[in-house]
Structure formats: structure tokens, C-alpha cells
């Protein structure tokens, strides 16, 4: 009897679009937190931007070939990150110029390809800024299923990946297969972008990766602690942002990013001042 009630309550939670949005958003925050820390430590903010902008091309290809959008976005992100990696190795341009060039070119190509497909009507705003309120139970399964795989892999490569982040040469000299862990990391990044696109859209994914991690930095003195803090800040931002968007009738994705920014600004207040206020 009790079981029945619980199941019914759970089912009704998933029935409510707002609850689904919060559960989905928190799921994404759980994955974005630790990966966002690596984005900050490795100074990959612009790299993340380039990858997420390429997601729109993934959307266009999915519509063109009638594939699942998440899988297509994941595949395009992996392809773009591999391309970036090989370009960075031999290119004449500096990394930041190369990334800036690619980030916006890929976004533009995606937009142009979508415009050519006159037979499909797409909610472009939804892809650019997220459509968290239309999350389905299938999306939730994807976020949590995919998220679990990403987190499990990340835990498995955590130590070598962190060592390679601190010093590539040191890690390599002491027998760590830096190429392998770096490659796995790129694939994980692509995975997060594929699931996070639905929540905040291609233009704001990097914000969800970076802002919670940057906020967590002030409160942590070891890497693992920072990753867990980033998850907490991300989840709080999702909750606050969605509540705010309901309250003030603002778009959900940008509201989440604004909430994350608020958390960051609060974290900047020196601790001594915070104590004095209390």
C-alpha cells in the first residue's frame, strides 16, 4: 500500500513539467560541476564555447537525416573536438585565435544549414537558449543515464586526468598515459554538451560549466572538494533560476545562468565581511 502511494507520488512528480525541469536541471548540474572544474583548471573556457556552438550544427544534421538530436550533437561535438586537437598541434594560429574562429564559424554554419531546410520548422530560440520546460520523461532518462556514464568514467580517470592537468610533462614522465585520459576527457565534454543543450541552450552551456566551478573555487582547498561544491552551486542555481523564472515570468535558461552569476557574486564577498553582517 505504502509502495503504491510512493509510486503514485513519484509519477505525479514526473507529470508536472516544472518538477521535470528541476530534476533534469539538477541532473545536468551534477555532471557539469566536476567537468566545469577541469574546464577552469585547464583553461578551456573558449574550447567549451567552441564545442557548444558546434552543437547547433549537430541539431541541423539530426533534422536533415532524421536522427536523435542528442546523439547527433554528441557525435558532432566529438568530431569538432578531435579536429581542434589536431589543428592545435600543427596550426600556425594561436589557440585562442583558432578557437574564436571556429566557435562562431560553426555556429553560423549551423544557422545557415537550418535556414536551408525550409521543410522543417525549428524553434531556434529553444536551441540557442534552452527549452528546459519542455523536458520529457525520455529526456530525463537520457540525462540521468548519460550523466551516470559520464560521472562513472570521470571517477575512473580522475587521478590521472588531474595529474595531467597539473603538469602534462610530469604526468607523462611518470608513466601516465596522458593522451588516453585527455581523449576520454574530450568525449566526456561532448557528452555533457549534448545533454546540457536542452537545459540552457548552446549559447549558455559554457556558463553552466564555468560559473558554478568558479564559485566553488573560493570555498575549496582540494580538487575533489571543489568538484562537489560546484555540483551544489550548480544545483542551487537551477532551483533558484527556475523558481525565479516562474515568479517573474522570465526565460528559464537565462534565469538559471543569472542565478549562477548571483551565487558567484556572493562568493566574492570576503569571508570576514560576511561574518560581520551576521
Amino acid at each position, binding site marked *: 500500500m505504502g509502495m503504491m502511494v510512493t509510486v503514485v507520488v513519484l509519477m505525479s512528480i514526473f507529470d508536472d513539467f516544472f518538477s521535470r525541469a528541476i530534476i533534469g536541471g539538477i541532473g545536468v548540474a551534477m555532471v557539469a560541476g566536476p567537468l566545469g572544474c577541469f574546464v577552469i583548471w585547464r*583553461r578551456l573556457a573558449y574550447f567549451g564555447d567552441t564545442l557548444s556552438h558546434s552543437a547547433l550544427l549537430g541539431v541541423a544534421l539530426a533534422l536533415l537525416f532524421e536522427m536523435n538530436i542528442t546523439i547527433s550533437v554528441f557525435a558532432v561535438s566529438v568530431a569538432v573536438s578531435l579536429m581542434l586537437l589536431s589543428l592545435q598541434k600543427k596550426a600556425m594560429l594561436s589557440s585562442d585565435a583558432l578557437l574564436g574562429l571556429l566557435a562562431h564559424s560553426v555556429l553560423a554554419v549551423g544557422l545557415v544549414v537550418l535556414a536551408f531546410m525550409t521543410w522543417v520548422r525549428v524553434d531556434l530560440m529553444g536551441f540557442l537558449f534552452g527549452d528546459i520546460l519542455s523536458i520529457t520523461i525520455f529526456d530525463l532518462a537520457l540525462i540521468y543515464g548519460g550523466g551516470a556514464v559520464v560521472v562513472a568514467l570521470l571517477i575512473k580517470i580522475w587521478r590521472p586526468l588531474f595529474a595531467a592537468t*597539473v*603538469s602534462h610533462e*610530469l604526468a*607523462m*614522465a*611518470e*608513466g601516465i598515459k596522458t593522451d588516453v585520459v585527455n581523449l576520454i576527457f574530450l568525449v566526456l565534454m561532448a557528452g555533457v554538451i549534448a545533454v546540457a543543450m536542452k537545459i540552457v541552450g548552446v549559447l549558455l552551456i559554457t556558463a553552466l560549466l564555468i560559473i558554478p566551478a568558479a564559485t566553488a573555487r573560493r570555498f575549496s*582547498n582540494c580538487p575533489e572538494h571543489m568538484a562537489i561544491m560546484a555540483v551544489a552551486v550548480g544545483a542551487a542555481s537551477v532551483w533558484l533560476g527556475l523558481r525565479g523564472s516562474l515568479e517573474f515570468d522570465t526565460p528559464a535558461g537565462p534565469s538559471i545562468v543569472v542565478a549562477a552569476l548571483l551565487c558567484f557574486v556572493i562568493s566574492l564577498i570576503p569571508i570576514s565581511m560576511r561574518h560581520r553582517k551576521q
Partner: protein
Amino acid sequence: MVIERGEIVTLIGPNGSGKSTTAKLALGVLDADEGAVSRKLQLNASYVPQKLKLHRNLPLSVTRFLLLTKRAEKRQVADALRATQTEHLADVQMSNLSGGEFQRVLLSRAILSSPEFLVLDEPVQGVDFNGELALYKLIEDIRNRLDCGILLISHDLHVVMSATDRVICLNGHVCCSGTPDAVASSDEFKSLFGERAASSLALYKHRHDHEHLPDGSIRARDEDLAAVSSNSVDPFANGNDGDSGGSDVDFR
């Protein structure tokens, strides 16, 4: 060039002569364009790089840094820190260390894993003279205790650590190699460096049979001239040459 277990080889040479590159080749961080490098399979190597910049955005304590690539017990970490007199820094963030402290922590990290092969790229930079002597003593201890092969890169062209078994002088290629002179007992040396220093430092006399010309070419030097100039003339007055060295390197 071969480095065996229990042997200390000191690499010297001017800036840009390929000392660090040789070290990275030995560790397998770089691949050789010419020549070949062979290492023992599953070599347990440890590395103290010349430069390591850690950004402030990395939350990393000294203890966590020591455990970066290898696992160890708390007691072993404490022992490794004590060996370089940095045990009071265990919980300090890496970004808050001074240059000399950072260098000693790097050395602690390298000895924590009990390596068979240890590469030290200018390990005494930023350390004061007394600290330098203490570190040389420590490096000698490490070699005696772990019986590991040590490749030490030194910034000083003439003064090397006395426990060195072999000195190799590089400038694009091996210019000369040999054992440091046992002058520690000479009074002149003692008065120059002090009693304590005399036991850990030694002089190295270059024996070059060629000169590096400004255009990068090499000219053979005749014997008489070499005998005179090796004592007084800086053998590296001229620039680098472009020869990246085709010799084989062997690490066991």
C-alpha cells in the same frame, strides 16, 4: 650515454644546449628526431622539471601534490617532506609557496615514489647556498638509499656536486665528459667555498678538442691550445650550434 642504477650523471652546458631536451628524451616525454632512446621496461621514473607553473585556480595542497601520480601512506608523505625540511608545509597551498620551498617540495615528491630513475632539472634554482649544499647531500643520500640512477642538470658550468660519477658537457652534442676533479681536500678550494661546501661540491675541468664558432660550425682545436685554454677560457663563449645530436641514449 648510458645511465645505470646507482649512478649520478651531471649534465652541464650553456643555455639552449639541449640539457632539458635530453632529460625529456630520457623520460619519454619527447620523441627523438634522430638516434634512439632505450629504457628498461616499466621503468619507475620520477621527474623534477625545470619549470612548473601552477595557476591559482588549482586548489592543491602540498600533500595532495605529493600524491599526484603515485599513491602513498600518510607516514611516507611525512617522511618525504621531512627529508627536505618541508614537513611544516604539508597543508599549505602550492600557489602560496616561495621559490625555494616549491623546489624542495618538488624534490620531496620525486623521492616519495622511490624511483629507479630520477631526473632533476636544475633542482637547486632559487635555493640559497646553504640550502643548495643540503640538497646535494640529500640527492647523494637518495642515491645511496634507493640505489637509483640520477640524471642531474646543473646550471653551473664548472662547479658540480662532488658525488657525481660522471659529468657530461653538452652543447648540441656531447662536447666532453669525465669525472669531476677531486679537489675537495685542497686548501684553495676550502678557502673559496668554505669547509662544508668542500665536501659536497667539486670542480669540473672541461677538456674540449673543438670550438663552437658564432655561425654554428665547429672547429677542431689543436692539442697545445686546448691544454692551455681549458683552464681559463669559458668554452661556451660562442653561440649554439644547430646539431641536435644523433647519438644513442640508453637508460637502465
